[in-house]
């Protein structure tokens, strides 16, 4: 199958453009997910901060973390926002002391939560992403400034996932159209740029075939082709024609000598 030179060259541009557009799209989407997640976390950080402030006021009054009566407050916060899955308060051993879901009290929280809490004890909050939920935590300090536990809020990832999916669909649609247009523009522009080069090659081939089959072609005839902008080609063709002529003349001269017509 014959694929023109311009076609082949233009084809090279396509994978490069597709890869470039794909990487940019993936990066954009990742940034969106990061920003969206930061915004959600920021909202829930405020809620957990409020819960923590209430707890710390009671700790300042001398109450122990495990003796606080905050289950109802936690439940109210959970009910007020349907994205909130649970709000839990755990101690420095990772044991749940209070929870909006009373069945989880006394359970151990995942090790990852405890590690994050310990690693971020100096920060105002920390966040994790689990398979089905996002987690936002704030440390609780007693009136001596010691870390005694943390408030952790788990929220549904549905909103985040739904938004990311919507953006992905939109990006795929828009970028596919953009990629298609870009590829077509690149392809045809490359074809256009190279078409002159290809026609020059075709003309060169054609002239060489004419010269080969008709050895007595007039030089003027082959010099007139406007497609050819390579001066050395014209010189080459002139020399080929001159060689043919010279061979004709020389052989005629030799024959004349041989026949004694010339001395």
């Amino acid at each position, binding site marked *: 199958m014959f694929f*023109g*030179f311009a076609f*082949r*060259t233009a084809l*090279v*541009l396509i994978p*490069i*453009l597709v890869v470039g*557009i794909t*990487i*940019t*799209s993936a*990066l954009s*989407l990742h*940034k*969106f997910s990061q*920003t*969206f997640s930061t*915004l959600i976390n*920021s*909202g829930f950080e*405020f*809620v957990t*901060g409020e819960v923590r402030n209430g707890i710390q006021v009671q700790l300042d009054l001398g109450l122990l973390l495990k003796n606080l009566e905050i289950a109802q407050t936690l439940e109210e916060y959970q009910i007020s*926002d349907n994205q909130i899955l649970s709000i839990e308060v755990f101690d420095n051993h990772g044991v749940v002391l209070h929870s909006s879901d009373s069945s989880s009290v006394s359970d151990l929280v995942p090790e990852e939560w405890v590690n994050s809490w310990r690693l971020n004890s100096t920060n105002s909050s920390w966040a994790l992403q689990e398979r089905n939920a996002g987690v936002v935590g704030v440390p609780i300090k007693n009136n001596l400034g010691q870390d005694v536990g943390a408030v952790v809020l788990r929220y549904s990832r549905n909103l985040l996932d739904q*938004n990311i999916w*919507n*953006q992905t669909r939109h*990006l795929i649609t*828009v970028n596919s159209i*953009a990629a298609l247009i*870009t590829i077509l523009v*690149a392809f045809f*522009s*490359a074809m256009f*740029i190279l078409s002159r*080069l290809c026609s020059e*090659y*075709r003309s060169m*081939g054609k002239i*060489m*075939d004419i*010269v080969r089959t008709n050895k007595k072609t007039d030089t003027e005839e082959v010099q007139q082709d406007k497609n050819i902008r*390579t001066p*050395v*080609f014209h*010189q*080459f063709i002139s*020399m*080929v024609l001159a*060689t*043919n002529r*010279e*061979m004709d003349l*020389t052989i005629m001269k*030799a*024959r004349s*000598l*041989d026949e*004694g017509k010339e001395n």
Partner: protein
Amino acid sequence: MIQNSETARAINQDRSPAPTPQKGFYIRLLLLGSAIMLLSQVIISWFALDRFEQALIPQLNQKAVAVGTALGSQITYASQELGIPINELIGVNDFFQSTLDSNPDLQYLAIVDLNEGVLFQYNTPQGVINSLMGEMQKQPYGSQGSHFTEEIAEYLDSRFPIYVNGNPVADLHVGVSTENIRRQLFTIVFEIIAVIMVSMVVTIEILNLFMSRNILAPTAHIHRVFESGSRGKFTSRLAMRVRNEFGIMVSSLNRLLYELEQRYQDFHFELRELRDAQIDPRISQKISIIIDQTNNRFGFSDRFSILEKTATQIRMPFFLFIFSEEMSRSFFPLFVVGFIPPNPALSYELMISMPITLFMVATFLATLVAGKWTCRVGCSRLFILGIAFAFVGYCGTFLADSYAELILWRCLNGVGYGLIFNACETWIALHSKESNRGHGASAYVGAIFAGYICGPSLGGMLAEYVGQDTTFLISAGLAIVSGFAAYRLLASDPPFHQDLSPSLTGLEPWKVLFGNSRFVSIVFTAIATRTTLSAFLFFLIPLYLNELGHTTIEIGQMMMLYGGIIVIGTPGISRLCDRIRRYFPATVAGAIISGVGLLFVLTSGLIGESRAVLVSIVAVGLGHCLILAPQYAIMQKIVYEHREQIERSVSISIYRFVDRIGLIIGPILAALLIQTTSYTNAIAAIGLIVLVAMAFSVTFANRQRSPVKSAVKA
């Protein structure tokens, strides 16, 4: 048949890039590819960011609602339960201030009363205050527990009515700025710029390869066939089978030359027949003269010439390899930190530097043996062997569990690195000519720094998104692609033998080279350049910028600047140096710029630490831009001068060997410096070392010139 093999050889030997009209098409195509890539990425990113902003605004408002509800209930509690009239509350502004400080995405907070106007506010712009009053007049209070959001100027304002004992007393306003979202999303612009740059470099590299293989090299060859033919020497045809316009033209050319040669043979045969059949010796002699004249006038051969390999052919595989290696550059010292055992044998800083140093040592040792291997197995096989080492090294680094394992795998990487560098340098030395040595060197240096552009920035992003260890796995994949490219482009490159058997072996080549003051001079510059590279760019930059709070993405982007400057500057500098033949002054200027640039970091107190580092990176980039290609050209010249005594590959190995010393001492030096002083002082100390090395280099170069001047005077 007339065989003029000398002319045929001359055609093949003249491999300097001929200025053909096709070069114009090549440049236009490069510009087209780059422009379309740039435009498409900008448009796509703009659409995406605009859409993202629309999706993020409701979420930002959600936060305002959460804050407004909580603050509203606290104010209601104070007024209703504690009985304090709302306009007599104390410390509300301070409370608002602390709330805004801990929630920087909120813009303002205000309590507005229908009769008394703004009771309390913090950070509310005057224009918004006027609008709030106007809105209050139009729509006094909403129902209890409700909230209402509207756009005021560039802010989203949420109103929360405050009810005391069932009566509305004021409105709490929480304002958020959409500018915050824009600012957060804007950080992606730098990442997209980095992706655009990487895409453009890759586009240029691929087009470069495609065009030079399919257009530039064949047309330059055809051009030489035409030129030779136009002088009456039809000595060469082109062996090429391509089913496109170019291939068809080449077939026409070959057929024309074949028929012309056939005709010439018939013509000659007839002349000889006429001469031999002639009984008159006078006429026979005349015909003999005609035969001799035609022999001198025309040259024919049925030789098919093939397109010879060029120096630039190694550029693509080499670029891909450097790309894979540079992927970890922006985070490698930070990656090592995770492997340092709790009670390290050496100081913490030295432990970080060790994997980098030992990598360089492995490279150094591989360079030692690579010189001989290159002769035995050829450049292409050595390159592929290097890729095999690198691939195993990357996979091992991905799987490494301990500090010792990490060092082992990195050493394997180092061996691969050394072999590949040697293969490339030998390839370029073998396929460059005296007239285009600088051009060949720029292909080599250009590939390295195109890798420096793409690797750190993309690697930094990948490390942030997929993890630092997984980035090594991606490097392994890229190394395989590089090996495949080398196999396709460099294959059939046989083991080579020097035309002349060099007489020197053992330590003799070392003595000869070090007896050459110009060699010693460039060794000083080379070691200083390499020390700057490994100490400053590879070691101190990631650690220092990380300490300043920059992410691996930002570190990668800053490091990318270095490669960018080199890629843009090197070809121009190398061409200029080739034209004016002033290689050494360029290296001196480069050393001064990079040395002073490193000292510039001391101004961090004036312009900021990150900016000072950025200026140093740019200065080092500019300096190295002036040093690298000329330094390589000087080295190639020295290698050429000593070719009769020392095998070229051996000379290159010796140069590489001493040059690597800079890479080895760099990280250790940097580690020792930061153990005793600050990062800025450590960087400045490296700058001083560069300047001192440059002074030594100039001294040795002058020692070479002095005897020459004396000889001229004599």
